[in-house]
């Protein structure tokens, strides 16, 4: 049930800023057009309105090797929203209702 | 800012935490010791559990088996989290390599028929036994008194799911990638006559209230089961042209050798306790008395079914393992000679 006045709520993820995670950060930026990226000491916060997606193939093309979505565990520091999907190909963070 | 660090020798004010210095003397403590010894709260608990008002939140009275100084027990493997997960990462990696090898050489597909039937019908269903073993070990993780003891239970619990997953992965491989064989294995676990005594024993250990008695019962059962499935049948498989079985069994056999190290040490500590030793010995003997006959029946049924398939003298192997387990308990619980 959505009312026209309802504000789109942000979701976001904090990732450790490191060389290994650069490909993930770039992939997230590329695949989430409306995202905002904020650099803090040691970490990067990426927020988007409503829904954030991480695609395996996008990460792999930047990394130049196979990448399992499980590897996202090594990068993530925190998030807000709900992890609605985490399968072989993508991870989706959004609010459900 | 630049400090001339090379010229500055800073003497530490202390070598480790106060309680460890008091326990071990003034020496640097290992990471195992700092992370494992005397971590659990021991006094001034605020509220009694709503789910068990008769006990404190951590309470030695949750078992008949007690240690005067629970933190005097340490894991012979010195496992704290980091070395533990590292060791298990290697185990699972080695196992994956084995599976990969079996797959590439088609060794599972080429298992002799009776061995394939044994693996699928009697061994893969043991993943459920491992799952039950996990819950029994987890119970010890919550209710054991003292962080060094429960830590062993905690990792053992995780190991048992790991073992269940190893067996499940064999089931997936043997089923050519589908989970159909796992479904059959589950049906066997809940229905096949050869597995029912073992399932019954597992369920009964699951509702045993004393975590240490449950753990002891599980261990006695393990001793028979591992001797049969991953040692005796391993050797028989090599003779019977079922090398694939052997390659799988070795991983579980070596895990069990690792598991025995802390269980043996804990049972020895119980029996040798200066204050509770005699009572512990009596409790251990009683637990063995309770469980051994049932374990022999349970694993015996499995052995009989295995013998029907591959004729490998499994029955005597179980009897020998039972004899060995009994002598271990007897040696531990025999009254100490006066000195």
């Amino acid at each position, binding site marked *: 049930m959505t009312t026209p006045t309802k504000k789109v709520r942000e979701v976001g993820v904090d990732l450790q800023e490191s060389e290994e995670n650069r490909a993930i950060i770039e992939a997230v930026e590329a695949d989430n057009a409306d995202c905002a990226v904020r650099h803090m000491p040691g970490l990067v916060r990426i927020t988007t309105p409503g829904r954030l997606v991480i695609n395996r193939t996008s990460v792999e093309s930047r990394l130049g090797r196979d990448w399992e979505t499980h590897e996202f565990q090594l990068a993530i520091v925190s998030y807000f929203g709900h992890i609605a999907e985490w399968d072989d190909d993508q991870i989706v963070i959004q609010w*459900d209702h | 800012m630049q400090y001339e660090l090379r010229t500055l020798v800073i003497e530490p004010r202390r070598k480790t935490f106060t309680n460890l210095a008091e326990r071990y003397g003034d020496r640097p403590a290992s990471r195992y010791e700092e992370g494992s010894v005397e971590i659990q709260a021991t006094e001034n608990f605020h*509220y009694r559990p709503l*789910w068990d008002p008769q006990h404190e939140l951590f309470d030695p009275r949750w078992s008949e088996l007690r240690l005067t100084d629970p933190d005097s027990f340490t894991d012979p493997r010195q496992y704290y989290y980091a070395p533990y997960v590292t060791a298990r990462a290697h185990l699972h*990696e080695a196992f994956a390599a084995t599976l990969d090898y079996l797959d590439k050489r088609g060794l599972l597909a080429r298992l002799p028929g009776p061995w394939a039937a044994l693996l699928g019908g009697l061994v893969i269903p043991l993943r459920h036994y491992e799952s039950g073993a996990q819950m029994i070990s987890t119970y010890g993780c919550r209710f054991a008194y003292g962080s060094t003891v429960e*830590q062993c239970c905690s990792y053992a619990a995780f190991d048992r799911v790991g073992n269940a997953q190893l067996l499940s992965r064999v089931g997936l491989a043997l089923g050519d990638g589908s989970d159909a064989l796992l479904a059959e294995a589950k049906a066997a676990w809940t229905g096949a006559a050869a597995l029912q005594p073992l399932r019954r024993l597992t*369920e009964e250990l699951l509702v045993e209230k004393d975590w240490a008695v449950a753990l002891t019962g599980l261990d006695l059962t393990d001793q028979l089961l591992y001797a049969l499935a991953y040692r005796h049948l391993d050797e028989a498989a090599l003779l019977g042209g079922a090398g694939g079985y052997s390659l799988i069994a070795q991983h579980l056999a070596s895990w069990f050798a690792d598991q025995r190290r802390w269980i043996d040490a804990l049972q020895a500590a119980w029996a040798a306790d200066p204050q509770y030793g005699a009572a512990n010995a009596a409790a251990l003997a009683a637990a063995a008395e309770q469980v051994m006959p049932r374990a022999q029946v349970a694993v015996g049924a499995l052995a009989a079914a295995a013998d029907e398939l591959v004729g490998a003298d499994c029955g005597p192997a179980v009897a020998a393992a039972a004899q060995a387990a009994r002598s271990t308990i007897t040696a531990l619980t025999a009254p100490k000679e006066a000195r």
Partner: protein
Amino acid sequence: MTATPRKLSMKQRYAALTRDLDWDLSYVDPAEAFPYTTFEGITVHDWSQWEDPFRLTIDAYTKYQAEKDKRLYAVLDSFAQSQGHLQLADPRYLNAMKLFLQGVTPLEYAAHRNFAFLARFLNGPGPRFAALCQCEDEIRHAQTEIHTLSNYNKYYGGMHNWHAQHDRVWYLSVPKSYFDDALSAGPFEFLIAIGFSFEYLLTNLLFVPFMSGASFNGDLPTMTFGFSAQSDESRHMTLGLEAIKFLLEQDAGNVPIIQDWIDKWFWRGYRVTSLVAQMLDYMLPRKVMSWKEAFELYFEQQMLGGLFPDLSYYGIKPPRHVSQAMAEKDVLSHQVYWTLYQFSFAAAFTTTIPDEEHLDWLSAQYPDTFDRYYRPLWDKARRVVDSGGRFFYQGLPQLCQVCQIPMLFSEPGDPAMLCQRHSVYRGERYDFCSDGCQWIFDREPEKYVQAWLPVHQIYQGDCGGPTVPDVLAWYGLAEGDSGEYEGSVEQADWKRWHASPAERS
């Protein structure tokens, strides 16, 4: 290229390797095997509805966790070898870490134990496995915290007796009683208390300030530990959120019970975060952000703005007393640190008067309250010091029966007036710092009458003896652990370590 048809998807493989391991017990009564999931009044119709998005199996778990620990311990080793502690912004920074080791590490350990309770006694194999993973993660956090701070312990005070102190010291009964409250609750309440309220609702407010503080103040090991632990926390957050959604979806009758638990555990957890509030505003020599900013960002925006609209779908409202928490954000940290300042003679950390630059920062961050209410107190404390004294409270404080914090909080809307509440239960009076704590007591007085209140226990003679030195000895406090930072052992050591060779000789 197409995927090999043989391979199961991550979801199918996870199901086959975890929840499919379960079977229906038939030789024993399932109610005997799972005896604790009925008394709380929660109804679960179908445990298989539980979704765990992480889908980690043991092989992947051990692989990634081993990799994380390899990276972490490499940093710890190199930090120790290079005497990295000398690069801290200031040794006063470590007061935050002392508090963390004494107050938070034992909670990680307690969580480890109680997630085992869930891993054994929840009926559904999905949540049992998720709880088992968290059980292992929590011992990791306890141990990596100890190992991270172990090197500092060798050179600085206040950390060497964290274990006994958690069971004994007055301010540590705040986090301890909070967690004991959760451990003594049934499995569902524990899930909401710790899995949801602590790990989801308040986790960013609790942990991110500590980790950012570490990063700003030159504490590389703690920052590394923190990020590494937080990557597990994201799994724990998910467990908490899954738990609440699952329970709300299972039965409409669960909704009011869960609302009550959210109301209770928000306030319990929020009171514990007051230690974080003073840490951010006072203990960190280099500031990250003010408590007020952190509260607005991590709680008001992310939780009230993001999470609660989502939960309103189920009929869940924001926590009762949340407006009182919001009203406190301008005063909380000042009141708490002012309390620690006057009681640090009995603590395993030191305190001191903020310097001029720090006072100006506080004025700028808290324009509505700081100059009016708190700066005058620090100015007066400075006058005491200038005349050769040091203000320590010559007595013991009145404690709140529920949160166990000295009753230092003010009436909503009036920073100059302390809040005093009390209830009478079975003829005895019980005092509370706030409407929130009173409400919690009145729900379950049978529980909170048992509280081991440090001040009351000292007066019963249970804490080493009748005098303050007796109690401090029982606390295991050593020379240099406590009191005023100016003139302390730690300050003297630091000056010596950083003196030029000429000054040293």
